[in-house]
């Protein structure tokens, strides 16, 4: 693997909830992403994957840990230094209905990115650039004068992507960019993202809960559970030979488009709910729902170790 472009080390984000209670949304995660690579980050709702994405882009201040972009620690940057880094690191949001300001035209929504970084010398230049960008993502230049409510979900998501592209970033965090969209539109957006990556060499952190989409999109995949990464591997390896029992359970839930196969397929059903991140279980965080948990799991937290070359998992029995 080539050298790391984005490097996350021991990142933690804790929220204070009431007196002496701490919600450990992201609890010590580490990974690297190479230039031009896509890393998928999956996990069920509430596992901290969106918080991880927002902490990496410093929308939330990290509690501890390092996030470095080509060797510079972003978490240590001052306000003015951070602004320059924001140009290199952008985000695409989950809900295309909430991510566009309903009171602004598309021209102003995308133009704001240009205004903040002083990328448009004149109004005419600004308008031309916005129209160029809209055409790049498959929208029309005439769309610039309209308001967000005049667009469909898929179109809005394209506008959200355009806004991120406007500052010409290198690293983009996609925070579940397709989960709010209709299935037929999901493929269009995914293909647009892949196409843009090929043309412009973006590095993606692709957050999602749809495993099949992540497989299609990502070079490597990290599986998150209760604020921690439990398995990290190249996409084919992870799907072919999952090592962590949680990953196995997740993969077994993917429906197969073949009724006979689907019937014979063994589905691992997890019992119980996700434990509260305010009060996580002792030892291995997954032990309360794990089919193979033993006494050792309650006492000792498993190390995140390389179980096969390039495949990491945190389980005593992996």
């Amino acid at each position, binding site marked *: 693997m080539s050298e790391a472009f984005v490097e996350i080390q021991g990142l933690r984000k804790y929220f204070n909830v009431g007196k002496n209670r701490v919600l450990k949304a992201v609890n010590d995660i580490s990974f690297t992403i190479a230039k031009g690579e896509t890393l998928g980050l999956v996990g069920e709702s509430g596992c901290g994957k969106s918080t991880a994405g927002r902490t990496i882009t410093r929308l939330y201040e990290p509690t501890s840990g390092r996030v470095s972009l080509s060797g510079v620690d972003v978490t240590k940057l001052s306000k003015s230094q951070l602004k320059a880094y924001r140009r290199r690191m*952008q985000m695409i949001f989950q809900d295309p209905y909430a991510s566009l300001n*309903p009171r602004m035209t598309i021209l102003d929504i995308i133009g704001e*990115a240009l205004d903040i970084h002083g990328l448009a010398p004149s109004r005419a230049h600004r308008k031309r650039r916005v129209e160029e960008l809209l055409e790049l993502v498959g929208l029309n230049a005439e769309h610039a004068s309209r308001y967000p409510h005049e667009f469909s979900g898929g179109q809005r998501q394209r506008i959200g992507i355009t806004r991120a592209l406007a500052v010409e970033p290198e690293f983009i965090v996609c925070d579940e960019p397709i989960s709010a969209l209709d299935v037929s539109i999901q493929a269009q957006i995914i293909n647009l993202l892949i196409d843009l990556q090929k043309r412009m060499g973006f590095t993606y952190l692709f957050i999602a809960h749809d495993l099949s989409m992540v497989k299609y999109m990502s070079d490597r995949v990290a599986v998150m559970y209760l604020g921690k990464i439990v398995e990290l591997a190249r996409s084919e390896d992870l799907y072919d030979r999952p090592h962590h029992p949680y990953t196995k359970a997740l993969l077994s839930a993917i429906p197969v488009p073949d009724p006979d196969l689907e019937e014979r397929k063994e589905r691992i059903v997890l019992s119980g709910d996700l434990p509260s991140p305010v009060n996580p279980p002792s030892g291995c965080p997954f032990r309360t729902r794990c089919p193979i948990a033993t006494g050792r799991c309650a006492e000792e937290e498993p190390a995140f170790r390389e179980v096969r070359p390039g495949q990491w998992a945190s389980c005593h029995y992996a």
Partner: protein
Amino acid sequence: MADLETPRATADPFAPLQRDPSGAERIQRRSRTAWQDVRYRLTTNKLAMTGFWLLILLVLMAFFAPLVWPFDHYTNDLQLNNQPPDSTHWFGTDDLGRDLFARTWKGAQISLFVGVAAALIDLVIGIVYGGIMGYYGGKVDEVMNRFAEILYSIPYLLVVILLLVFMEPSLTTIIVAMSITGWINMAWIVRGQMMQLKNQEFALASKALGASSMRIIFRHLVPNAMGPILVTLTLSVPSAIFTEAFLSFLGLGVQSPVASWGTMINDGVQSMSIYPWRLFFPALFLSLTIFAFNVFGDGLRDAFDPKLKK
């Protein structure tokens, strides 16, 4: 639609028509922005529109009636004091023989001015203070909110009386007195809105682009909170007018010969069983104004509430 061609009869009546992609992006019906929706809901609300036209009428009268009326509000004619309403003095005269019609509309000018000025001051301070308090949250919010609560807990009359130690009773004093505590409600409304909106993805997106906090507050959050802000504004105008009337009634407001509805009611109340018209007219217009603002404000609130959208 006249501009849509009717399909011509072909040999095969069920032959598919040619698809024309050039018209695919054309929007047939003009789409309405959120503001147009609000205007539509407001204009179809009869009660709110009654309030609105009543306000327009009152404002026009306040400005133009004193200009065309033959009497002014300060010249007294002791021969003609305490006249009941007749064809020359429509609203009668007071104990100094001053024309009450002229005084009522002069009073309307003062009352409306005080109401609007106090509401606008509340608006500006409330948006800035509430915006900062709600957006930053945490310790900033804690400190700023405690300060507002302390200010809010001081009895209002005490503030006014203390203020009169330093300032002469006048219109400015009244407006200052009302503004000292009046902005707090607006600030709380704005604070609540900010807390709700600041974690919306469009605000986060702007932050991710590198927008400053001030830009996010005033370009993104405040425009989206405009509905509740406008409603609070229209409802705070009558309360300011009422407070002015109340303070003038207590003798802390504008001084004679300038009239406000409050001072006129104060004068009228002393002789209400003998010369009831001296109380009736200013009281009627004060009530009408407050009524108009209230129904208009209510209508505005309904218009901004998307749950009522039909």
